[in-house]
């Protein structure tokens, strides 16, 4: 940890760094006055929302800012000598040798048409005078070091032939080959699934202690940063607002923005019944509109006073290493919040009480039995051109039975490719079902949406994931919300506009938004318009397909709260799909865990998060990054890749990766490989699809201890 008495050598020292980009309208400052140091064997986390300038800093350090970016001020000292103002040739000898980088999307970062081995070995042959053969050998060793299965073979492969997690391992291996003094990682796990992410983070931890490099870890995810960093720098709108040891900051965040971020995400295990999320209002200002001589966070701050708007605050030292850019940093915990904020907290608390009272009804709104959704695919054989040969199917959803009661929320979790999105498409009728029974409002609705009757269609609506594509860019907000109103004739023709305004108010948007085009809205606002559009037909069931996963943390909370409030006012039932286990837990009453097209565990939310677990649920929970550096989590990692849904494993779909069956079943769990597992009923409504007897599953330790 960073606080050891003997401080390691400083590898990188960034002082008052400012970076600007040239645009048509003049220079725009992306990073302003940022200072931090990175020491040997230490990881500094740079955390912040999109557009806060964290990646710009990374590229600024290696001076790779593109044709219109430039460092306008400040110093970067690497191992004692300045990096700024060096010639391209000098930089070249440092890049890839002394300073290495790991990027977000490994698929893009690796050359698709050069063998991985060559891409690895060239790092050695170019920087060290090493013969090709030896470089090759060393590369294989490094691949072994990053726990790559079958490294000799991987060397001869191309990027697309290995999985995403393996690709990232190759990129990491490439970065570590020359034993760099500084390793910069820019969102290295963001594109990966939770279980893969956990394994890669483990690897990064291991490598840190082995190679003793100085690390910079850039991420937007507080959980990830809590896990890997020693020091933390919180970025906001191009400025550093708080820095210090990670434990200190999580224990005692002193900048209002840091505090806001932490209050905006649910901790794993939090539920809407017992805790609240506090969003940060407003949005990050665009680089051109940032105040020069005021606190940059003041417009969104709950503690802001007139003093904040008078001058740009300097970093205030709170302890030897902990500092925050807020004039009230030292007394922040005792400072009064603005009246508005206080009122809001009270109201929230009140609303919570009411909310708990609801959800008593036990009427079924949606029920499915052995639902199947297969996609036909073409086989590789020549015969398939003529429609002959074997027909192949991707079994996206296989035998899914679930039941949703009126007014309740069912969360569906699983990693990418588990079939949760396909399940939704099947329910709402966008894809034809291949088998099974589906009942909605006591009517059988096996057919596609175009064949359903209008009154059923209007009762099931959807909120989508991606704010940038949820609204049609060609039409104004008003028109898009009005369309379902007109189509389902929810109000008489003359009152459509009023109804739209009413809906806008319901999603906390002013009537001024009526004439806006989607590109004039921020991500959170678009998402709210999307919710208003779904509400327009006054549906009984709202399906939310990852509604917050593409939003910044500070905005997520607002959207979650809005959805909860809507459920409360309108009494809608919801299906909530997400890959983030904390959010699903917070939002849902019941949860279904999916793996390879099947539900492996389903039950009341609180039951899912404590033993007995399905082994897959257990692994998921063990993998979730928790935004608390002191939390203890069991280390369970899944091996291997997710099998193809085209040819799922026989018996239990999870048997190829199951960490439990070997130790908990007689004769190594042979039975899992051939026989479909039985449903085991644990408590009321809690079922687990597993061969391991319930009694044994119950004996498992909980994953998380606090």
């Amino acid at each position: 940890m960073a606080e050891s008495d003997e401080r390691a050598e400083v590898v990188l020292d960034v002082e008052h760094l400012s970076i600007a980009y040239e645009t048509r309208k003049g220079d725009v400052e992306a990073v302003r006055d940022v200072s931090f140091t990175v020491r040997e064997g230490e990881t500094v986390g740079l955390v912040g929302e999109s557009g806060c300038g964290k990646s710009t800093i990374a590229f600024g350090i290696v001076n790779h800012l593109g044709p219109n970016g430039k460092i306008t001020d400040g110093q970067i000292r690497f191992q004692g000598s300045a990096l700024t103002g060096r010639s391209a040739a000098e930089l070249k000898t440092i890049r890839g040798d002394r300073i290495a980088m790991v990027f977000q999307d490994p698929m893009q970062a690796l050359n698709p048409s050069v063998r991985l081995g060559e891409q690895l070995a060239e790092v050695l042959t170019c920087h060290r005078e090493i013969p090709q053969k030896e470089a090759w050998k060393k590369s294989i060793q490094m691949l072994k070091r990053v726990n790559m299965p079958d490294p000799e073979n991987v060397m001869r492969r191309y990027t697309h032939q290995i999985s995403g997690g393996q690709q990232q391992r190759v990129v990491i291996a490439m970065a570590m080959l020359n034993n760099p003094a500084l390793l910069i990682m820019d969102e290295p796990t963001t594109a990966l699934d939770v279980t893969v992410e956990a394994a890669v983070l483990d690897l990064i931890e291991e490598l840190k202690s082995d190679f003793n490099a100085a690390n910079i870890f850039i991420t937007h995810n507080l959980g990830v940063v809590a896990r890997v960093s020693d020091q933390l720098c919180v970025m906001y709108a191009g400025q550093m607002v708080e820095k210090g040891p990670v434990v200190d900051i999580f224990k005692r965040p002193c900048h209002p923005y840091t505090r806001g971020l932490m209050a905006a995400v649910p901790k794993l295990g939090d539920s809407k019944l017992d805790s609240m999320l506090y969003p940060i209002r407003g949005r990050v200002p665009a680089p051109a509109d940032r105040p020069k001589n005021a606190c940059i966070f003041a417009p969104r701050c709950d503690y802001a006073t007139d003093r904040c708007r008078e001058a740009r605050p300097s970093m205030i030292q709170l302890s030897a290493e902990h500092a925050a850019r807020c004039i009230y940093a030292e007394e922040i915990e005792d400072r009064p919040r603005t009246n508005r904020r206080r009122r809001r907290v009270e109201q929230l608390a009140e609303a919570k009480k009411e909310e708990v009272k609801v959800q008593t009804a036990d009427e079924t709104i949606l029920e499915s039995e052995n639902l199947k959704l297969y996609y036909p695919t073409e086989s590789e054989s020549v015969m398939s051109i003529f429609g002959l040969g074997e027909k192949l199917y991707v079994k996206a959803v296989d035998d899914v039975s679930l039941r949703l009661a009126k007014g309740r929320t069912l969360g569906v979790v699983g990693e990418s490719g588990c079939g949760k999105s396909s399940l939704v498409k099947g329910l709402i009728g966008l894809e034809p079902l291949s088998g099974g029974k589906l009942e909605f409002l006591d009517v059988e609705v096996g057919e596609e949406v175009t064949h359903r009757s209008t009154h059923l269609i209007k009762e099931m609506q959807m909120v989508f994931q991606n704010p940038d594509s949820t609204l049609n860019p060609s039409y104004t907000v008003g028109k898009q919300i009005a369309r379902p109103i007109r189509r389902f004739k929810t109000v008489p023709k003359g009152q459509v506009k009023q109804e739209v305004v009413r809906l806008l108010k319901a999603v906390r948007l002013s009537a001024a938004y009526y004439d806006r085009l989607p590109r004039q809205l921020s991500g959170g606002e678009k998402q709210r318009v999307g919710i208003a559009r779904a509400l327009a037909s006054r549906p009984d069931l709202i399906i939310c397909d990852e509604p917050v996963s593409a939003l910044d943390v500070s905005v997520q909370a607002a959207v979650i709260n809005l959805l909860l409030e809507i459920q409360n006012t309108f009494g809608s039932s919801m299906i909530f799909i997400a890959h983030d286990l904390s959010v699903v837990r917070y939002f849902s009453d019941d949860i279904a865990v999916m793996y390879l097209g099947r539900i492996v565990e389903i039950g009341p939310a609180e039951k899912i998060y404590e033993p007995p677990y399905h082994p897959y649920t257990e692994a998921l929970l063990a993998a979730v990054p928790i935004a608390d550096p002191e939390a203890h989590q069991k280390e369970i990692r899944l091996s291997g890749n997710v099998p193809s849904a085209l040819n799922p494993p026989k018996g239990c779909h999870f048997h190829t990766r199951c960490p439990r069956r070997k130790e908990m079943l007689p004769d190594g769990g042979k039975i899992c490989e051939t026989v479909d597992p039985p449903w085991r009923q644990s408590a009321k409504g809690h079922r687990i699809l597993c061969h391991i007897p319930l009694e044994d599953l119950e004996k498992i330790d909980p994953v998380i201890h606090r």
Partner: protein
Amino acid sequence: MTDGESAVSTSGDAVDPIPDLRQRSFFQRWWEGFSIIFASKTAMVGLFLVLFWIFVAIFAPFLTPYTPLEQDWKSPNIGPSAEHPLGTDELGRDLWSRLIYGARVVLVVLPISEDLWIPGGTAIWGVIVALVVGTALGLISGYYGGWIDEITMRLLDAMMAVPIILLYLIIMAALGASAINVVIAMTIVGTPGIARLVRSLTLDIRTREYIRAAETRGENPWHIMFIEILPNARGPIIVDAMLRVGYAIFAMGTLGFLGLGIPPPSPDWGSMVAKGREFILAGSPWAALWPSVAIATLVVGLNLLADGLREESMRYQ
């Protein structure tokens, strides 16, 4: 939940200061887009060339004392002179008049019969009709997919596999030379390319969530295709159409040159070149030179304009 502030930020008195993004008028937005041209020198040069030809085409009757068919048998094949600024052809017709009336047929009027014409040049109509047909085909096959897509695309693939010149030869030889037939030929030749473009745009746009939203509302396919998808595909379609106008002029010239275009004695740049070519080595290059220059400047102008616009709009992304 009570009225007033929930956890949600913008409401009532708490509405954030919204950046002033008031809808600008259509004209303002148009002008803003248009002003990009002035930032690019190449686009300016292109614009100048194109505007020059549009101008002379529209005002052709006021820019010359001769009609394009008027023969002066006393002075055939002469070079530029005070009377004939660009010279005359082998029948003593004034080349400047023929040139600007030729531009008219390309850009401003579509002659249907001897005394009937409709506004919009032959090249423009060729692009418009192909655009309409191609867009409809592309939307339908892209949105419906399945066997409709399979059949349409196989047919269009087959058409695209046929060398374009061959299509022109066969179609024009069969239909006979006339302005309307040139439009028909251009439509047949241009449709597959546009259909492919629109199809690929449709395939992309239909995966967007607002399309799924429309589907979950149970909208009918025509609404989705023409109201939800098409407006969002217009950008690339317009750029493509601009380039296609350049190509249509190219094709018109080529057909005229091969004797498959607008029939004589109507002034057609391509056939003027074809005729004038015979007299180059006899010492009078003018009749071949001027229409070649005309068609070259017009297509180069259009392409410079399109290129400049594209580059300028991408520069600061």
